[in-house]
């Protein structure tokens, strides 16, 4: 069953047709990679899922509900979490606080003036956040400032923040961009492990074919704003159109 259903989505920026009649169907519990050359419209498409952009035409249905025309926080409350290309974290807060904030959002909704209890005494949220940090391997650093982390750790922290919400759908925008090979492999292992323990549906935008073919169950190839192929990684590897558009120069 498709948890995310994208139909006939088009988006134009001035003279540029960024997305042209895109159709995409993400099955529940799978890892769906979106690949394509620079400027193919991958990030634009992702922005249409989280309320940052509204497409000119088309529909985006998540879990039977339209994601268009509603605010980013409402989309998140519906169960969609996003990891950004450059980590978006609370830099001057500790790692533990960084994970507690989304945990509170999951427990208390999008707004609550919860001003009387002490944060330390909110045991359920604190223990939940600590467990997620443990799972992701950042527990020892939980009292350090998020800004003092390495780029790889920041990315893992952002994943921990998203995971603490138990999202139904996790969107990852180039989760290994700018990472060393070792960090990339660690991230792949982490995502695989999370796939086994949690089974969250993931949509991954990625440049690195190594990552795509290690993780993805399905791959959609975007070129010049259009999906030119959607299939399993193996089939995509052999697809002539894809090779022409993209893989020809970058295939390993």
């Amino acid at each position, binding site marked *: 069953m498709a948890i995310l259903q994208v139909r006939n989505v088009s988006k134009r920026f001035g003279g540029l047709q960024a997305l042209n009649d895109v159709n995409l169907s993400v099955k529940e519990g799978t890892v769906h990679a979106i690949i394509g050359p620079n400027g193919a419209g991958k990030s634009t498409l992702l922005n249409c899922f*989280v309320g940052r952009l509204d497409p000119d035409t088309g529909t985006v249905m998540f879990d039977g509900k339209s994601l268009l025309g509603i*605010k*980013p*926080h409402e989309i*998140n*409350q519906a169960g969609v*979490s*996003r990891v*950004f290309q450059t980590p*978006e*974290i*609370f*830099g*001057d*807060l*500790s790692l533990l*606080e960084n994970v*507690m*904030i*989304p945990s*509170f*959002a*999951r427990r*208390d*909704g*999008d*707004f*609550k*003036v*919860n*001003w*009387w*209890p*002490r*944060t*330390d005494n*909110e045991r359920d*949220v604190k223990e939940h956040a600590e467990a997620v940090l443990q799972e992701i391997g950042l527990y020892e650093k939980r*009292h*350090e*400032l998020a800004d003092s982390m390495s780029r790889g750790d920041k990315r893992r922290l952002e994943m921990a*923040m998203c995971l603490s*919400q138990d999202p139904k759908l996790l969107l990852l925008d180039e989760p290994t961009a700018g990472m060393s090979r070792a960090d990339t492999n660690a991230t792949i292992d982490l995502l695989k492990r999370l796939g086994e323990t949690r089974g969250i549906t993931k949509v991954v935008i990625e440049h690195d074919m190594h990552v795509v073919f290690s993780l993805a169950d399905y791959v959609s190839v975007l070129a010049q704003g259009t999906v030119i192929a959607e299939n399993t990684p193996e089939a995509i590897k052999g697809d002539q159109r894809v090779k022409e558009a993209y893989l020809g120069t970058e295939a390993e």
Partner: protein
Amino acid sequence: MFGLKGSDFALFLVVAVLTLAAPFILNPFPETSSLAQFNGGYPDLMQRFVIFGIFAIGFNILFGLTGYLSFGHAAFLGVGSYAAIWMMKLLTMNVIPAIIMSVIIAGLFSLVVGWISLRRSGIYFSILTLAFAQMSYALAYSVLTPITGGETGLQPKLNDPRILDAAPEGGRIPQANLFGLDMGESRVWNVGDWAFTFNAGYYVAAVVMLVAFYLSIRIFRSPFGMMLRAVKSNQQRMNYTGLNSKPYTLAAFVISGMYAGLAGGLLVAMDTQVGPERMFWTASGEVVLMTILGGVGTLIGPVLGAGFIKYMENILSKINTTVLEGWFAFLPDGAADAVVAVLGLFVGKGWHLTLGLIFMIVVIFLPGGLVEGGRRMFRGRDRTATRKVKSGQTPPTSKPAE
């Protein structure tokens, strides 16, 4: 203790003791000594310390936690003052209804101003709040004269209705009181050459300040306070994390507006008169200075900053060239004249010059304000600790922001 963490409770206790013992602490010099003019322990000034302390504590909840810099908070102080004086004219000279009404009216007014101003952030937000405050000032001065008394302002009059009070005796304008305890009443305790003044109004204001301070600690340490810090840290991430940042900032704005209204109401309780100059933009700027000087985002910083600025304003401005001449009389004539001429620029009416210099020095060398200065003195050169303090966060491994 009282739901506070150990170190926070200790801080609260220190502030409580200092506040209640202020008549002693602020009067260290005997009346007969030439240093007596540096004594700050007279009722009018002590009241200002705690009242502007409340104003700055509230301002810090908005500016220190969410990072939204309002340049119009004096408007809420002024509106609170007008609300309080009207309660005194219509209802009773008892300060309780006046103070409660000042908080409510300032809260409602800040809800409106915040609702509109918070559509923008950064410098545009600051300009919007400034515009609102200047509009309020101009309105109070002109169009709203029937409500505000215009240029002359408002005072309790003999022929006010005051429906809850008995008719005033002997044609005297009644005094603000707390169930009969006159706010202006003072007892002086003479110990040797020292004279310590205990003023009823000061203690009422001090207790209110301690309550306000306690509530601000609760807010700082609560999940709500953490959300406000998240607004300052990364509003975009907050929205993509399922939190609606708008009502959080509005709540912070209204809370700080209510604190400002409370301060305005207390000003009226201590000195029963209001004029529109209370809302002028310099008054809004002053609370920004207080908060930054003391330490933005720290618990105690705003109180220190408020005390510091009010002390300077009242004490430094009293020193004139005659006083300086007295001090430097021991120098040869020419030298004394030169020294007096130079120092004279920085005291008396020129106290703003001194304040400006101190403000520049603090901002450049102590971005964490007086609190950071104190911390550096106690801890030597512990760079990591000061870094954490500056960011206003509280790692359990180190001491929390004070």
